Protein backbone atom coordinates (compact mmCIF):
# COMPACT_ATOMS: atom_id res chain seq x y z
CA UNK A 1 0.00 0.00 0.00
CA UNK A 2 1.59 3.27 -1.08
CA UNK A 3 0.09 6.65 -0.18
CA UNK A 4 1.07 10.10 -1.33
CA UNK A 5 0.72 13.59 0.13
CA UNK A 6 2.15 17.06 -0.07
CA UNK A 7 3.78 18.65 2.97
CA UNK A 8 4.39 22.38 2.97
CA UNK A 9 7.96 23.06 4.11
CA UNK A 10 6.63 25.48 6.72
CA UNK A 11 4.92 22.53 8.38
CA UNK A 12 7.96 20.31 8.57
CA UNK A 13 9.38 21.60 11.83
CA UNK A 14 5.99 21.41 13.53
CA UNK A 15 5.57 17.81 12.40
CA UNK A 16 9.10 16.84 13.49
CA UNK A 17 8.57 18.56 16.83
CA UNK A 18 5.42 16.51 17.38
CA UNK A 19 7.23 13.31 16.44
CA UNK A 20 10.07 14.18 18.79
CA UNK A 21 7.59 14.45 21.64
CA UNK A 22 6.63 10.83 21.10
CA UNK A 23 9.99 9.28 20.34
CA UNK A 24 13.67 9.90 19.88
CA UNK A 25 14.42 11.99 16.80
CA UNK A 26 17.66 11.43 14.93
CA UNK A 27 18.70 13.65 12.05
CA UNK A 28 21.77 15.17 10.37
CA UNK A 29 23.29 17.69 12.79
CA UNK A 30 26.61 19.42 13.18
CA UNK A 31 28.84 17.94 15.84
CA UNK A 32 31.42 19.80 17.98
CA UNK A 33 33.98 19.94 15.18
CA UNK A 34 31.52 21.03 12.51
CA UNK A 35 31.00 17.68 10.77
CA UNK A 36 27.48 16.77 9.80
CA UNK A 37 26.53 13.44 11.35
CA UNK A 38 23.38 11.67 12.45
CA UNK A 39 22.65 12.65 16.03
CA UNK A 40 19.80 12.83 18.45
CA UNK A 41 17.99 16.14 17.87
CA UNK A 42 17.50 18.61 20.66
CA UNK A 43 16.73 21.72 18.64
CA UNK A 44 14.68 21.16 15.52
CA UNK A 45 16.02 24.30 13.86
CA UNK A 46 19.54 22.89 14.02
CA UNK A 47 18.75 20.00 11.68
CA UNK A 48 20.90 20.31 8.56
CA UNK A 49 18.32 20.12 5.82
CA UNK A 50 20.60 20.99 2.94
CA UNK A 51 23.54 18.81 3.79
CA UNK A 52 25.44 16.88 1.10
CA UNK A 53 24.26 13.38 0.28
CA UNK A 54 27.28 11.81 1.84
CA UNK A 55 27.03 11.41 5.58
CA UNK A 56 28.26 8.60 7.80
CA UNK A 57 25.82 5.74 7.32
CA UNK A 58 23.05 5.02 9.80
CA UNK A 59 24.48 1.53 10.33
CA UNK A 60 25.67 2.78 13.71
CA UNK A 61 22.03 3.09 14.86
CA UNK A 62 21.20 -0.54 14.05
CA UNK A 63 24.52 -2.27 14.61
CA UNK A 64 26.41 0.08 16.93
CA UNK A 65 30.16 0.08 16.81
CA UNK A 66 30.12 -1.12 20.40
CA UNK A 67 27.03 -2.82 21.71
CA UNK A 68 26.45 -4.59 24.99
CA UNK A 69 24.80 -7.97 24.50
CA UNK A 70 24.64 -9.19 28.10
CA UNK A 71 25.50 -8.20 31.56
CA UNK A 72 26.40 -11.03 33.89
CA UNK A 73 26.15 -10.37 37.60
CA UNK A 74 28.76 -12.32 39.52
CA UNK A 75 26.90 -11.93 42.80
CA UNK A 76 23.48 -13.18 41.63
CA UNK A 77 24.90 -15.47 38.92
CA UNK A 78 22.35 -13.93 36.56
CA UNK A 79 22.42 -12.87 32.92
CA UNK A 80 20.50 -9.85 31.69
CA UNK A 81 20.32 -8.90 28.05
CA UNK A 82 20.11 -5.30 26.97
CA UNK A 83 17.89 -5.17 23.91
CA UNK A 84 17.03 -1.60 23.03
CA UNK A 85 13.32 -0.92 22.64
CA UNK A 86 13.58 2.85 22.28
CA UNK A 87 11.19 4.17 19.68
CA UNK A 88 13.02 6.37 17.20
CA UNK A 89 12.44 8.28 14.04
CA UNK A 90 15.44 8.76 11.80
CA UNK A 91 14.99 11.76 9.56
CA UNK A 92 17.07 12.79 6.59
CA UNK A 93 18.76 9.57 5.60
CA UNK A 94 19.22 8.81 1.91
CA UNK A 95 17.80 6.15 -0.35
CA UNK A 96 21.06 4.18 -0.38
CA UNK A 97 20.97 3.77 3.39
CA UNK A 98 17.36 2.61 3.32
CA UNK A 99 18.21 0.12 0.57
CA UNK A 100 21.15 -1.12 2.65
CA UNK A 101 18.90 -1.64 5.66
CA UNK A 102 16.47 -3.63 3.53
CA UNK A 103 19.30 -5.97 2.56
CA UNK A 104 20.51 -6.19 6.15
CA UNK A 105 16.96 -7.14 7.22
CA UNK A 106 17.23 -10.23 5.06
CA UNK A 107 20.60 -11.05 6.58
CA UNK A 108 19.83 -10.32 10.23
CA UNK A 109 16.12 -11.13 10.52
CA UNK A 110 15.08 -13.76 7.97
CA UNK A 111 17.08 -16.67 9.32
CA UNK A 112 18.04 -16.99 13.01
CA UNK A 113 16.80 -13.47 13.90
CA UNK A 114 19.32 -11.30 15.68
CA UNK A 115 17.21 -9.87 18.53
CA UNK A 116 19.30 -6.72 18.95
CA UNK A 117 19.14 -5.66 15.32
CA UNK A 118 15.51 -6.76 14.97
CA UNK A 119 14.34 -4.74 17.93
CA UNK A 120 16.17 -1.62 16.80
CA UNK A 121 14.79 -2.02 13.31
CA UNK A 122 11.21 -2.59 14.42
CA UNK A 123 11.31 0.41 16.70
CA UNK A 124 12.74 2.81 14.11
CA UNK A 125 10.78 4.81 11.59
CA UNK A 126 12.79 6.00 8.59
CA UNK A 127 12.06 9.28 6.85
CA UNK A 128 14.34 9.31 3.84
CA UNK A 129 14.99 12.13 1.41
CA UNK A 130 15.40 11.76 -2.33
CA UNK A 131 18.81 13.03 -3.46
CA UNK A 132 18.25 16.05 -5.70
CA UNK A 133 21.93 16.65 -5.92
CA UNK A 134 24.04 13.49 -5.77
CA UNK A 135 27.69 13.75 -4.83
CA UNK A 136 30.40 13.09 -7.45
CA UNK A 137 31.19 9.81 -5.68
CA UNK A 138 27.63 8.43 -5.76
CA UNK A 139 26.76 5.54 -8.07
CA UNK A 140 23.50 4.25 -6.61
CA UNK A 141 21.80 4.91 -9.94
CA UNK A 142 23.47 1.83 -11.42
CA UNK A 143 22.17 -0.36 -8.61
CA UNK A 144 18.59 0.89 -8.35
CA UNK A 145 19.23 1.87 -4.73
CA UNK A 146 18.90 5.59 -5.43
CA UNK A 147 18.54 8.51 -5.95
CA UNK A 148 14.94 7.64 -4.98
CA UNK A 149 13.31 4.36 -4.04
CA UNK A 150 10.38 2.79 -5.79
CA UNK A 151 9.64 0.68 -2.73
CA UNK A 152 11.03 -0.50 0.58
CA UNK A 153 10.87 2.80 2.47
CA UNK A 154 8.79 3.98 5.41
CA UNK A 155 8.38 7.61 4.40
CA UNK A 156 10.14 9.14 1.41
CA UNK A 157 10.30 12.90 0.86
CA UNK A 158 11.08 14.58 -2.45
CA UNK A 159 12.12 18.20 -2.14
CA UNK A 160 10.05 20.25 -4.60
CA UNK A 161 11.42 23.63 -3.54
CA UNK A 162 8.68 25.04 -1.31
CA UNK A 163 7.10 21.71 -0.41
CA UNK A 164 7.80 18.01 -0.01
CA UNK A 165 6.23 15.25 -2.05
CA UNK A 166 5.55 12.63 0.61
CA UNK A 167 5.25 8.90 -0.01
CA UNK A 168 4.52 6.43 2.76
CA UNK A 169 4.58 2.67 2.51
CA UNK A 170 4.52 0.98 5.89
CA UNK A 171 1.46 0.95 8.13
CA UNK A 172 3.28 2.68 10.93
CA UNK A 173 4.37 5.46 8.57
CA UNK A 174 0.86 5.95 7.20
CA UNK A 175 -0.62 6.11 10.69
CA UNK A 176 1.94 8.72 11.71
CA UNK A 177 0.95 10.91 8.76
CA UNK A 178 -2.74 10.36 9.38
CA UNK A 179 -2.34 11.50 12.97
CA UNK A 180 -1.28 14.88 11.57
CA UNK A 181 -3.54 14.86 8.50
CA UNK A 182 -4.11 18.61 8.88
CA UNK A 183 -0.49 19.23 7.85
CA UNK A 184 -0.72 17.20 4.66
CA UNK A 185 -2.67 17.84 1.48
CA UNK A 186 -3.53 15.80 -1.58
CA UNK A 187 -0.98 16.01 -4.41
CA UNK A 188 -2.13 17.82 -7.57
CA UNK A 189 -1.11 16.98 -11.10
CA UNK A 190 1.49 19.76 -10.97
CA UNK A 191 3.07 18.13 -7.93
CA UNK A 192 3.51 14.86 -9.80
CA UNK A 193 4.99 16.78 -12.73
CA UNK A 194 7.39 18.63 -10.47
CA UNK A 195 8.44 15.43 -8.75
CA UNK A 196 9.12 13.83 -12.11
CA UNK A 197 11.25 16.82 -13.11
CA UNK A 198 13.26 16.62 -9.92
CA UNK A 199 13.93 12.93 -10.36
CA UNK A 200 14.99 13.42 -13.98
CA UNK A 201 17.34 16.25 -13.13
CA UNK A 202 18.79 14.28 -10.24
CA UNK A 203 19.45 11.28 -12.47
CA UNK A 204 21.20 13.51 -14.97
CA UNK A 205 23.61 14.79 -12.34
CA UNK A 206 25.33 11.47 -11.65
CA UNK A 207 28.98 11.57 -12.65
CA UNK A 208 29.77 7.90 -12.11
CA UNK A 209 28.15 5.16 -14.15
CA UNK A 210 29.23 1.87 -12.68
CA UNK A 211 27.84 -1.57 -13.37
CA UNK A 212 28.46 -4.06 -10.60
CA UNK A 213 26.65 -6.62 -12.69
CA UNK A 214 29.32 -6.30 -15.32
CA UNK A 215 32.10 -6.67 -12.74
CA UNK A 216 30.38 -9.74 -11.34
CA UNK A 217 30.08 -11.34 -14.77
CA UNK A 218 33.69 -10.60 -15.51
CA UNK A 219 34.91 -12.19 -12.27
CA UNK A 220 32.69 -15.21 -12.81
CA UNK A 221 33.98 -15.60 -16.36
CA UNK A 222 37.41 -16.40 -14.92
CA UNK A 223 39.15 -13.72 -16.99
CA UNK A 224 40.37 -11.85 -13.94
CA UNK A 225 43.62 -13.39 -12.81
CA UNK A 226 45.21 -13.23 -9.38
CA UNK A 227 47.76 -10.76 -10.74
CA UNK A 228 44.92 -8.22 -10.94
CA UNK A 229 43.99 -8.80 -7.31
CA UNK A 230 47.66 -8.73 -6.36
CA UNK A 231 47.84 -5.23 -7.79
CA UNK A 232 44.73 -4.16 -5.90
CA UNK A 233 46.11 -5.69 -2.71
CA UNK A 234 49.43 -3.88 -3.02
CA UNK A 235 47.47 -0.64 -2.58
CA UNK A 236 45.55 -1.78 0.50
CA UNK A 237 46.60 -0.09 3.72
CA UNK A 238 44.55 -2.55 5.79
CA UNK A 239 43.04 0.41 7.62
CA UNK A 240 39.54 -1.07 7.59
CA UNK A 241 38.07 2.29 6.60
CA UNK A 242 35.93 0.85 3.82
CA UNK A 243 34.52 -1.75 6.18
CA UNK A 244 33.58 0.69 8.90
CA UNK A 245 32.04 3.15 6.44
CA UNK A 246 30.18 0.53 4.42
CA UNK A 247 26.48 0.34 5.28
CA UNK A 248 26.53 -3.35 4.34
CA UNK A 249 29.64 -4.53 6.21
CA UNK A 250 28.40 -6.17 9.38
CA UNK A 251 31.17 -8.44 10.67
CA UNK A 252 31.62 -8.20 14.38
CA UNK A 253 33.69 -9.70 17.16
CA UNK A 254 32.55 -10.43 20.70
CA UNK A 255 34.48 -9.52 23.82
CA UNK A 256 33.99 -10.02 27.54
CA UNK A 257 34.90 -7.17 29.87
CA UNK A 258 35.21 -7.80 33.59
CA UNK A 259 34.27 -5.21 36.17
CA UNK A 260 34.15 -5.58 39.95
CA UNK A 261 30.75 -7.25 40.23
CA UNK A 262 29.78 -7.75 36.64
CA UNK A 263 30.97 -9.00 33.29
CA UNK A 264 29.86 -7.29 30.13
CA UNK A 265 29.64 -9.30 26.93
CA UNK A 266 29.71 -6.89 24.01
CA UNK A 267 30.09 -7.00 20.28
CA UNK A 268 32.04 -4.54 18.20
CA UNK A 269 32.75 -3.98 14.55
CA UNK A 270 35.48 -6.13 13.06
CA UNK A 271 37.03 -6.20 9.61
CA UNK A 272 37.81 -9.13 7.32
CA UNK A 273 40.75 -7.13 5.98
CA UNK A 274 42.64 -7.68 9.22
CA UNK A 275 45.04 -10.59 9.44
CA UNK A 276 43.79 -11.82 12.81
CA UNK A 277 40.15 -11.91 11.70
CA UNK A 278 40.25 -15.64 10.93
CA UNK A 279 42.90 -16.65 13.47
CA UNK A 280 42.38 -20.15 14.82
CA UNK A 281 43.16 -21.55 18.22
CA UNK A 282 46.88 -22.10 18.40
CA UNK A 283 47.62 -19.04 16.28
CA UNK A 284 47.09 -20.48 12.78
CA UNK A 285 46.23 -17.72 10.28
CA UNK A 286 44.25 -19.12 7.33
CA UNK A 287 44.17 -15.73 5.59
CA UNK A 288 47.68 -14.56 6.26
CA UNK A 289 48.23 -13.67 2.60
CA UNK A 290 46.79 -10.22 2.05
CA UNK A 291 45.41 -11.03 -1.39
CA UNK A 292 43.03 -13.56 0.15
CA UNK A 293 41.55 -10.86 2.34
CA UNK A 294 41.17 -8.34 -0.46
CA UNK A 295 39.48 -10.93 -2.63
CA UNK A 296 37.27 -11.98 0.25
CA UNK A 297 35.91 -8.44 0.62
CA UNK A 298 35.22 -7.90 -3.07
CA UNK A 299 33.94 -11.41 -3.73
CA UNK A 300 31.61 -11.24 -0.77
CA UNK A 301 30.03 -8.07 -2.09
CA UNK A 302 30.05 -8.87 -5.82
CA UNK A 303 29.56 -12.64 -5.92
CA UNK A 304 28.22 -14.09 -2.70
CA UNK A 305 25.88 -11.34 -1.54
CA UNK A 306 23.80 -11.57 -4.76
CA UNK A 307 23.93 -15.38 -4.65
CA UNK A 308 22.59 -15.55 -1.12
CA UNK A 309 20.66 -12.33 -0.46
CA UNK A 310 19.67 -11.46 -4.02
CA UNK A 311 21.21 -8.02 -3.97
CA UNK A 312 24.75 -6.73 -4.19
CA UNK A 313 26.72 -6.11 -1.03
CA UNK A 314 27.00 -2.51 -2.19
CA UNK A 315 24.42 0.25 -2.56
CA UNK A 316 26.64 2.69 -4.42
CA UNK A 317 26.89 5.21 -1.61
CA UNK A 318 30.51 5.98 -2.47
CA UNK A 319 31.69 6.16 1.14
CA UNK A 320 34.59 3.80 0.45
CA UNK A 321 35.59 6.03 -2.47
CA UNK A 322 35.98 8.92 -0.07
CA UNK A 323 37.65 6.86 2.64
CA UNK A 324 40.07 4.58 0.83
CA UNK A 325 43.61 6.00 0.86
CA UNK A 326 44.73 3.47 -1.77
CA UNK A 327 41.99 4.23 -4.30
CA UNK A 328 40.87 0.61 -4.38
CA UNK A 329 37.30 1.31 -3.38
CA UNK A 330 34.38 -0.49 -5.01
CA UNK A 331 33.88 2.13 -7.72
CA UNK A 332 37.56 2.32 -8.68
CA UNK A 333 37.96 -1.46 -8.81
CA UNK A 334 34.83 -1.80 -10.93
CA UNK A 335 36.19 0.88 -13.28
CA UNK A 336 39.40 -1.09 -13.60
CA UNK A 337 37.48 -4.27 -14.28
CA UNK A 338 35.45 -2.43 -16.89
CA UNK A 339 38.57 -1.26 -18.69
CA UNK A 340 39.77 -4.87 -18.78
CA UNK A 341 36.45 -5.85 -20.29
CA UNK A 342 36.62 -3.12 -22.91
CA UNK A 343 40.27 -3.13 -23.81
CA UNK A 344 41.42 -6.54 -22.73
CA UNK A 345 43.89 -4.81 -20.48
CA UNK A 346 44.01 -2.34 -17.70
CA UNK A 347 44.22 1.36 -18.31
CA UNK A 348 45.47 3.77 -15.69
CA UNK A 349 42.71 5.11 -13.53
CA UNK A 350 41.43 8.60 -13.99
CA UNK A 351 43.04 11.16 -11.73
Amino acid sequence: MKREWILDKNHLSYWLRQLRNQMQLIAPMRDQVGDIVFKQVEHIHKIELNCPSLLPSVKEFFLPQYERLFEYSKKDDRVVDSISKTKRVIFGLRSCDVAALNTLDRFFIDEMPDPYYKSRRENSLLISIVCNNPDPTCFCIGLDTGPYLKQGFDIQLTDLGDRYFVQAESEWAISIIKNYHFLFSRPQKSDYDDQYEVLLSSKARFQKRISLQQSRQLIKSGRIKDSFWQGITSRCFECGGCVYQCPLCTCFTVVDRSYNDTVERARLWDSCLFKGFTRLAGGILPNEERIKRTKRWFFHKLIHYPDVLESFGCVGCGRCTVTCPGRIDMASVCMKLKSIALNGEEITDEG
Partner: protein
Amino acid sequence: MKVKNREPAKQENNIYRPIKGTIERIKKQTSDVSLFTLELEEPVHYKAGQFFMVSVWGAGEVPISVTSLARKSTRIEFCIRRVGMVTGRIHQLKEGDNLWIRGPYGRAFPLELAKGRDVVIVAGGIGIAPLRPLIETFMKRKKYKVSLLYGSRSPDDIVYLDETRKWKQQGVNVVLTVDRPTDGWKGNVGLVTTLWHLAEVDFKKSVAFICGPEVMIRAAMQDLFFFGMPEERIITTLEAHMKCGVGKCGHCYAGKLYICKDGPVFSYKEIKEQSILNLGF
Protein backbone atom coordinates in the same frame (compact mmCIF):
# COMPACT_ATOMS: atom_id res chain seq x y z
CA MET B 1 10.73 -3.93 6.93
CA LYS B 2 9.70 -6.97 8.90
CA VAL B 3 7.15 -5.74 11.37
CA LYS B 4 4.29 -8.06 10.56
CA ASN B 5 3.51 -10.95 12.91
CA ARG B 6 5.47 -9.26 15.61
CA GLU B 7 5.82 -11.52 18.61
CA PRO B 8 6.46 -10.23 22.07
CA ALA B 9 10.21 -10.49 22.53
CA LYS B 10 10.71 -13.38 24.87
CA GLN B 11 14.07 -13.76 26.51
CA GLU B 12 14.35 -17.29 25.13
CA ASN B 13 14.39 -15.81 21.65
CA ASN B 14 17.82 -14.34 22.13
CA ILE B 15 20.06 -16.53 19.99
CA TYR B 16 23.15 -15.29 21.83
CA ARG B 17 21.95 -16.14 25.35
CA PRO B 18 23.87 -19.00 26.97
CA ILE B 19 22.46 -21.46 29.50
CA LYS B 20 24.26 -22.50 32.63
CA GLY B 21 25.97 -25.82 33.09
CA THR B 22 27.69 -27.21 36.16
CA ILE B 23 30.86 -29.21 35.74
CA GLU B 24 30.14 -32.64 37.24
CA ARG B 25 33.40 -34.27 36.35
CA ILE B 26 36.74 -33.41 34.80
CA LYS B 27 38.67 -36.33 33.41
CA LYS B 28 42.21 -35.57 32.40
CA GLN B 29 43.07 -37.19 29.10
CA THR B 30 46.55 -35.86 28.35
CA SER B 31 48.74 -33.04 29.61
CA ASP B 32 46.60 -30.44 27.79
CA VAL B 33 43.29 -32.21 27.09
CA SER B 34 40.48 -32.85 29.55
CA LEU B 35 36.99 -34.24 29.26
CA PHE B 36 34.36 -32.04 30.91
CA THR B 37 30.98 -33.53 31.85
CA LEU B 38 28.30 -30.89 32.37
CA GLU B 39 24.87 -30.97 33.96
CA LEU B 40 22.73 -28.27 32.33
CA GLU B 41 19.85 -26.27 33.79
CA GLU B 42 17.67 -27.25 30.83
CA PRO B 43 17.91 -30.10 28.32
CA VAL B 44 19.48 -29.65 24.90
CA HIS B 45 19.03 -31.91 21.88
CA TYR B 46 22.24 -32.52 20.02
CA LYS B 47 23.76 -34.83 17.44
CA ALA B 48 27.29 -35.93 16.59
CA GLY B 49 29.07 -33.32 14.49
CA GLN B 50 27.26 -30.34 15.99
CA PHE B 51 28.95 -27.84 18.26
CA PHE B 52 28.19 -25.45 21.09
CA MET B 53 29.53 -22.04 21.96
CA VAL B 54 31.10 -22.66 25.37
CA SER B 55 31.96 -19.73 27.58
CA VAL B 56 33.36 -18.52 30.83
CA TRP B 57 32.13 -15.04 31.81
CA GLY B 58 35.06 -12.70 31.63
CA ALA B 59 37.07 -14.82 29.21
CA GLY B 60 34.74 -15.27 26.25
CA GLU B 61 33.15 -17.87 24.05
CA VAL B 62 34.69 -20.61 21.93
CA PRO B 63 33.12 -23.16 19.59
CA ILE B 64 33.51 -26.70 20.94
CA SER B 65 32.12 -29.82 19.29
CA VAL B 66 29.98 -32.29 21.17
CA THR B 67 31.81 -35.42 22.22
CA SER B 68 28.98 -37.28 23.92
CA LEU B 69 26.46 -39.58 22.27
CA ALA B 70 23.61 -37.86 20.42
CA ARG B 71 20.55 -37.39 22.61
CA LYS B 72 18.21 -34.98 24.30
CA SER B 73 19.59 -34.51 27.75
CA THR B 74 20.74 -32.16 30.45
CA ARG B 75 24.04 -34.00 30.36
CA ILE B 76 26.70 -33.17 27.82
CA GLU B 77 30.42 -33.73 27.41
CA PHE B 78 33.10 -31.58 25.83
CA CYS B 79 36.66 -32.65 25.23
CA ILE B 80 38.72 -29.49 25.38
CA ARG B 81 42.36 -28.85 24.62
CA ARG B 82 44.11 -26.00 26.38
CA VAL B 83 45.27 -23.89 23.49
CA GLY B 84 44.15 -20.28 23.86
CA MET B 85 42.85 -17.71 26.29
CA VAL B 86 39.34 -19.08 26.81
CA THR B 87 40.31 -22.75 26.84
CA GLY B 88 43.08 -21.80 29.27
CA ARG B 89 40.46 -20.37 31.62
CA ILE B 90 38.23 -23.43 31.18
CA HIS B 91 41.11 -25.64 32.23
CA GLN B 92 41.50 -23.66 35.46
CA LEU B 93 37.91 -24.56 36.47
CA LYS B 94 37.16 -27.28 38.97
CA GLU B 95 34.32 -29.73 39.41
CA GLY B 96 31.29 -27.80 40.64
CA ASP B 97 32.22 -24.65 38.70
CA ASN B 98 30.04 -23.31 35.92
CA LEU B 99 30.43 -23.31 32.18
CA TRP B 100 27.86 -21.53 30.00
CA ILE B 101 26.83 -22.96 26.67
CA ARG B 102 24.53 -22.17 23.78
CA GLY B 103 23.66 -24.36 20.84
CA PRO B 104 23.71 -26.87 19.30
CA TYR B 105 24.77 -25.30 16.04
CA GLY B 106 25.62 -26.60 12.60
CA ARG B 107 24.92 -29.72 10.62
CA ALA B 108 25.40 -33.15 12.14
CA PHE B 109 27.30 -36.01 10.52
CA PRO B 110 25.18 -37.67 7.80
CA LEU B 111 24.91 -41.08 9.46
CA GLU B 112 22.58 -42.34 6.77
CA LEU B 113 25.52 -42.46 4.35
CA ALA B 114 26.98 -45.32 6.38
CA LYS B 115 23.95 -47.57 5.89
CA GLY B 116 25.15 -50.88 4.46
CA ARG B 117 28.69 -49.62 4.07
CA ASP B 118 31.99 -49.98 5.87
CA VAL B 119 33.19 -46.97 7.82
CA VAL B 120 36.67 -45.44 7.91
CA ILE B 121 37.24 -42.90 10.63
CA VAL B 122 40.36 -40.76 10.39
CA ALA B 123 41.31 -38.62 13.38
CA GLY B 124 44.24 -36.38 14.20
CA GLY B 125 44.90 -35.19 17.74
CA ILE B 126 41.91 -33.52 19.39
CA GLY B 127 40.03 -34.26 16.14
CA ILE B 128 38.96 -37.49 17.79
CA ALA B 129 36.51 -35.52 19.96
CA PRO B 130 33.61 -35.05 17.50
CA LEU B 131 34.22 -38.54 16.08
CA ARG B 132 33.82 -40.33 19.40
CA PRO B 133 29.99 -40.20 19.43
CA LEU B 134 30.06 -41.46 15.86
CA ILE B 135 32.12 -44.53 16.79
CA GLU B 136 29.87 -45.18 19.79
CA THR B 137 26.75 -44.92 17.62
CA PHE B 138 28.13 -47.39 15.10
CA MET B 139 29.11 -49.77 17.89
CA LYS B 140 25.69 -49.49 19.49
CA ARG B 141 23.95 -50.34 16.26
CA LYS B 142 26.29 -53.35 15.84
CA LYS B 143 25.87 -53.63 12.09
CA TYR B 144 28.90 -51.67 11.03
CA LYS B 145 32.48 -52.59 10.28
CA VAL B 146 34.47 -49.64 11.56
CA SER B 147 38.16 -48.83 11.11
CA LEU B 148 39.68 -46.02 13.15
CA LEU B 149 42.97 -44.50 12.03
CA TYR B 150 44.07 -42.16 14.76
CA GLY B 151 47.26 -40.12 14.78
CA SER B 152 48.68 -38.23 17.75
CA ARG B 153 51.78 -36.19 18.41
CA SER B 154 53.20 -38.67 20.90
CA PRO B 155 51.97 -41.67 22.93
CA ASP B 156 51.27 -39.28 25.80
CA ASP B 157 48.99 -37.21 23.60
CA ILE B 158 46.51 -39.96 22.74
CA VAL B 159 43.06 -38.72 23.79
CA TYR B 160 40.53 -41.40 24.82
CA LEU B 161 43.26 -44.04 25.16
CA ASP B 162 41.03 -46.17 27.46
CA GLU B 163 38.20 -45.95 25.02
CA THR B 164 40.28 -47.02 22.04
CA ARG B 165 40.88 -50.25 24.00
CA LYS B 166 37.17 -50.58 24.66
CA TRP B 167 36.36 -49.96 21.01
CA LYS B 168 38.90 -52.59 20.01
CA GLN B 169 37.11 -55.11 22.22
CA GLN B 170 33.84 -54.12 20.63
CA GLY B 171 35.24 -54.92 17.22
CA VAL B 172 36.60 -51.63 15.90
CA ASN B 173 39.77 -51.97 13.87
CA VAL B 174 41.79 -49.43 15.87
CA VAL B 175 45.03 -48.23 14.27
CA LEU B 176 47.00 -45.80 16.41
CA THR B 177 50.03 -43.90 15.22
CA VAL B 178 52.25 -41.20 16.66
CA ASP B 179 54.57 -38.59 15.18
CA ARG B 180 57.16 -38.79 17.93
CA PRO B 181 57.43 -42.20 19.63
CA THR B 182 58.68 -42.49 23.21
CA ASP B 183 60.51 -45.44 24.71
CA GLY B 184 58.22 -48.38 25.00
CA TRP B 185 55.94 -47.39 22.12
CA LYS B 186 55.53 -50.45 19.93
CA GLY B 187 52.86 -49.09 17.63
CA ASN B 188 52.97 -47.25 14.33
CA VAL B 189 55.00 -44.12 13.75
CA GLY B 190 54.20 -41.48 11.16
CA LEU B 191 51.20 -39.77 9.59
CA VAL B 192 47.82 -41.47 9.48
CA THR B 193 47.85 -41.05 5.73
CA THR B 194 50.68 -43.60 5.49
CA LEU B 195 48.54 -46.31 7.08
CA TRP B 196 45.73 -46.78 4.60
CA HIS B 197 46.73 -50.42 4.06
CA LEU B 198 45.73 -51.13 7.68
CA ALA B 199 42.17 -49.87 7.18
CA GLU B 200 40.91 -53.27 6.02
CA VAL B 201 38.08 -51.87 3.93
CA ASP B 202 37.21 -51.54 0.28
CA PHE B 203 37.49 -47.77 -0.11
CA LYS B 204 35.23 -47.72 -3.15
CA LYS B 205 32.35 -49.12 -1.11
CA SER B 206 32.85 -47.36 2.19
CA VAL B 207 32.31 -43.98 3.78
CA ALA B 208 34.89 -41.85 5.60
CA PHE B 209 34.59 -39.40 8.47
CA ILE B 210 37.65 -37.22 9.01
CA CYS B 211 38.61 -34.67 11.64
CA GLY B 212 41.97 -33.21 12.54
CA PRO B 213 44.38 -30.49 11.52
CA GLU B 214 43.60 -28.93 8.14
CA VAL B 215 46.69 -30.39 6.44
CA MET B 216 45.68 -33.86 7.57
CA ILE B 217 42.09 -33.38 6.43
CA ARG B 218 43.19 -32.23 3.01
CA ALA B 219 45.69 -35.07 2.56
CA ALA B 220 43.25 -37.72 3.79
CA MET B 221 40.45 -36.51 1.53
CA GLN B 222 42.68 -36.44 -1.52
CA ASP B 223 44.02 -39.94 -0.79
CA LEU B 224 40.58 -41.46 -0.27
CA PHE B 225 39.30 -39.84 -3.45
CA PHE B 226 42.34 -41.23 -5.26
CA PHE B 227 41.52 -44.70 -3.92
CA GLY B 228 38.11 -44.45 -5.52
CA MET B 229 35.89 -43.33 -2.69
CA PRO B 230 33.09 -41.12 -4.09
CA GLU B 231 33.64 -37.51 -3.06
CA GLU B 232 30.17 -37.15 -1.53
CA ARG B 233 31.01 -39.97 0.88
CA ILE B 234 34.21 -38.36 2.16
CA ILE B 235 32.96 -36.36 5.12
CA THR B 236 34.90 -33.97 7.31
CA THR B 237 34.22 -31.36 9.92
CA LEU B 238 36.07 -28.05 9.79
CA GLU B 239 37.41 -25.65 12.34
CA ALA B 240 37.11 -21.89 11.99
CA HIS B 241 37.35 -18.73 14.03
CA MET B 242 33.78 -18.13 15.20
CA LYS B 243 32.21 -15.51 17.39
CA CYS B 244 28.49 -16.17 17.02
CA GLY B 245 27.84 -19.70 15.76
CA VAL B 246 24.75 -18.60 13.83
CA GLY B 247 26.10 -17.05 10.62
CA LYS B 248 26.12 -13.42 11.72
CA CYS B 249 29.59 -12.43 12.86
CA GLY B 250 31.23 -13.22 9.51
CA HIS B 251 34.42 -14.79 10.83
CA CYS B 252 33.94 -18.31 9.46
CA TYR B 253 32.64 -17.16 6.09
CA ALA B 254 34.10 -19.27 3.27
CA GLY B 255 32.94 -19.28 -0.30
CA LYS B 256 29.32 -18.29 0.07
CA LEU B 257 28.90 -20.52 3.09
CA TYR B 258 29.35 -20.06 6.79
CA ILE B 259 31.24 -22.92 8.43
CA CYS B 260 29.06 -22.51 11.53
CA LYS B 261 25.60 -22.78 10.02
CA ASP B 262 26.19 -24.48 6.66
CA GLY B 263 28.83 -26.78 8.19
CA PRO B 264 30.91 -27.55 10.13
CA VAL B 265 30.33 -30.95 8.51
CA PHE B 266 31.03 -30.93 4.77
CA SER B 267 31.63 -33.54 2.11
CA TYR B 268 34.72 -33.38 -0.10
CA LYS B 269 32.33 -32.63 -2.96
CA GLU B 270 30.98 -29.53 -1.21
CA ILE B 271 34.44 -28.41 -0.20
CA LYS B 272 35.64 -28.60 -3.79
CA GLU B 273 32.54 -27.03 -5.32
CA GLN B 274 32.37 -24.17 -2.86
CA SER B 275 36.15 -23.83 -2.63
CA ILE B 276 36.05 -23.86 1.14
CA LEU B 277 39.47 -25.22 2.05
CA ASN B 278 42.62 -23.79 0.51
CA LEU B 279 40.44 -20.82 -0.15
CA GLY B 280 40.26 -20.54 -3.87
CA PHE B 281 38.49 -17.26 -3.59
